[in-house]
């Protein structure tokens, strides 16, 4: 057994705040009365509704679909009646078309939901079709349709699959609990991916601050050749796919490139476990594990939540707010998106619901850059954040482009580490947007 711990250059060590939930077993969330299911929870084309207002639907029934390749269908997470199809605010900050369903409390399962049989009996194409039909999208937060990721073009041969169990975001423990409680589903999902892509080398990569998960996963993959569990240095953003590939294989995904350019596919452990669940039960993605935590949550929990459940209903069953909330975040504190209302639905990419109290939510006052160079030392992409930020503030976006602003992965490490509390990644994001818009116009 190798004791090697893998890592990448740069990165930060934010305080973890995971103790509140890391030992709390996943609990089934209360059945919601109302679910609001967005027709677009992923990167790619939004779905068209397959149902109409007043129609009865069942659990697992496909209610939205698009003909586009880069898209992912959505399914009902309850049985009941379609009440509304209208535009609703969702966690990504966008307003998208959503189907509101009132539950009849019966949770009748749709006829199409049937176990898919043994993995051995399924062909490569069948596995891919099952993954596509089940509406799988990256559950780590980005929400890229999984079947697209697993169908790389012919000229990009894949030799390595990496299951991303790093969970480097502070506060979040959903992936950790999945590995502890559902290792069999992770294994089944991983084997399905290996089959679909035709690869016989894979890694389950876990930060070493989760020794129990490493042990459990090691035990379960022991009989399977080609699957290796590896320890990663506990460091943010270790879970970024380009960082995790670099840590384990030493390969560098080229600037502007994708993992497939270096023969790798990285899938979040929650996504992989869900693939396992789809194969075993036939149930599409209608639920996900989410960590509900933060300084203003009464009883932090890891919940198995039906997609479309409103944040306020989830928070209520965690005992509600323990004090006046200052900030409500979809995801972790480093890359999550702040919400202005708790009436947004849980989507496939909701890895965490984080509520910070007034004090923790305060945005610090920036002071002058003292050129301490910490942002340069920790940038995982080797950028000079202070320079890009300075140019962005001066509206010199062409200058910012020269400093490779568009290579920024927006991990936020620079803003975190800055002693002068400068809004580094925030301003770099603006520069990126300006540069990309300009490039598009030029084309």
């Amino acid at each position, binding site marked *: 057994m190798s004791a090697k711990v893998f890592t990448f250059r740069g990165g930060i060590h934010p305080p973890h705040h995971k103790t509140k939930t890391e030992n709390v077993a996943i609990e089934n969330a209360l059945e919601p009365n109302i679910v609001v299911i967005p027709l677009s929870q992923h990167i790619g084309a939004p779905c068209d509704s397959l149902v109409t207002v007043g129609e009865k639907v069942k659990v697992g029934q496909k209610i939205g679909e698009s003909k586009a390749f880069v898209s992912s269908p959505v399914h009902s997470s309850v049985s009941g009646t379609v009440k509304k199809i209208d535009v609703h605010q969702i966690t990504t900050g966008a307003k998208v078309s959503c189907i509101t369903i009132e539950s009849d409390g019966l949770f009748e399962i749709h006829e199409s939901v049937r176990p898919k049989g043994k993995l051995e009996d399924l062909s490569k194409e069948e596995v891919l079709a099952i993954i596509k039909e089940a509406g799988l999208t990256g559950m780590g937060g980005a929400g890229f349709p999984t079947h697209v990721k697993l169908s790389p073009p012919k000229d990009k041969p894949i030799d390595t699959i990496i299951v991303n169990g790093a969970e480097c975001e502070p506060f979040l423990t959903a992936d950790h609990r999945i590995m502890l409680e559902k290792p069999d589903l992770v294994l089944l999902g991983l084997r399905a991916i290996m089959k679909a892509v035709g690869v016989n080398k894979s890694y389950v990569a876990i930060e070493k601050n989760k020794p129990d998960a490493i042990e459990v996963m090691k035990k379960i993959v022991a009989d399977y050749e080609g699957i290796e569990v590896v320890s990663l240095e506990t460091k943010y953003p270790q879970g970024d796919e380009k960082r995790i590939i670099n840590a384990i294989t030493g390969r560098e995904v080229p*600037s502007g490139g994708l993992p497939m350019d270096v023969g790798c596919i990285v899938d979040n452990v929650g996504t992989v476990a869900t693939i396992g669940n789809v194969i075993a039960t036939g149930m599409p993605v209608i639920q996900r594990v989410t960590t509900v935590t933060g300084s203003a949550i009464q009883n932090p929990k890891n919940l198995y939540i039906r997609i479309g459940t409103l944040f306020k209903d989830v928070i209520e069953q965690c005992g509600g707010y323990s004090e006046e909330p200052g900030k409500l975040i979809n995801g972790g*504190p480093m*890359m999550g998106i702040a919400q202005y209302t708790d009436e947004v639905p849980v989507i496939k990419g909701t890895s965490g619901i984080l509520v910070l109290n007034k004090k923790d939510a305060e945005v610090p006052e920036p002071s002058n850059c*003292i050129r301490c160079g910490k942002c340069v030392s920790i940038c995982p992409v080797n950028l000079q954040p202070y320079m890009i930020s300075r140019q962005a503030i001066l509206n010199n976006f062409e200058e910012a482009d020269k400093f490779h602003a568009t290579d920024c992965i927006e991990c936020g*490490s620079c803003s*975190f580490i800055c002693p002068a*509390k400068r809004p580094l990644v925030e301003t770099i994001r603006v520069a990126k947007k300006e540069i990309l818009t300009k490039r598009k116009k030029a084309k």
Partner: protein
Amino acid sequence: MENKLIGSSSPHIRTDETTQKLMLDVVIALLPALVASIFYFGFNSLILVIASVVSAVVTEYICQRIMKKPITVTDLSAVVTGILLAFNIPPTAPWWIPVLGSAFAIAIAKQIFGGIGFNFINPALAGRAFLMASWNPHLTTGWIDPVTDAVSSATPLSIIKGSATGELPSLFDMLVGNIPGVLGETSALLLLAGGIYLIYRGVIKWIIPVFYIGTVAILALFVDGGSMMLYHVLGGGLMLGAFFMATDYVTCPITDRGKVIYAIGAGILTMIIRKIGGYPEGVSYSILLMNILTPLIDKYVTPKLFGGAK
């Protein structure tokens, strides 16, 4: 609740490190050397340091009031400048020397250029250069020999240079600071301890001190031979300069490779000044000259992009 939630962009958490805490660490790292200077040179040392610090802080406050800018004296950067400037003057200097030096350092070298982060040279060294040019006798004489407790005319480096006569102190005295010199540079050992504290706390990186002192040591070995090498390393404020002046964030290069170039450059300049320049010691001017080259180094020495450039 909609109107009460804060909606800023990620990240939503920050390190609790602040500019003020970094500066406080520098002050803490300088304290042992301050205590040593009081021990060796007497109470006047403390008066000079206090005068310098008060002048730096008050000057900063006044400048910011006049320019109608936010008052940032609580970030402690002026305190650091005040201590560092006082560390550069002889123990018998009158109290108004550090007062004028600090005022110049803050007003002219720092605030005129935009305050903290915008000065292009180290304010404390600029203040010292100003004093050197204006009241040279107060800066270059008036050494106290802690062994005899008498006012002496020679520092070890001026003896090496031949600009003064006298006997070189023992290397042990050089190390602990039992030698004539400016306030803060006397004890190489305590400055080293302060420097190691700063490296341990992550306030500075090891690169500049190691390459700077290393360059001076290697050149001294070639120029003056092995017996003089340690005098060059332990004397003339090299430790103070290498750990506390050359590492000044604002005026040294940002990247690691840039820091190496800068430190080696400062080492070479230090030895050139010591051997053929007009002054017995070259630490301050070597750092000031390299400060001016910093923007150039930063322009041409940039980190290699992960995944290669487009």
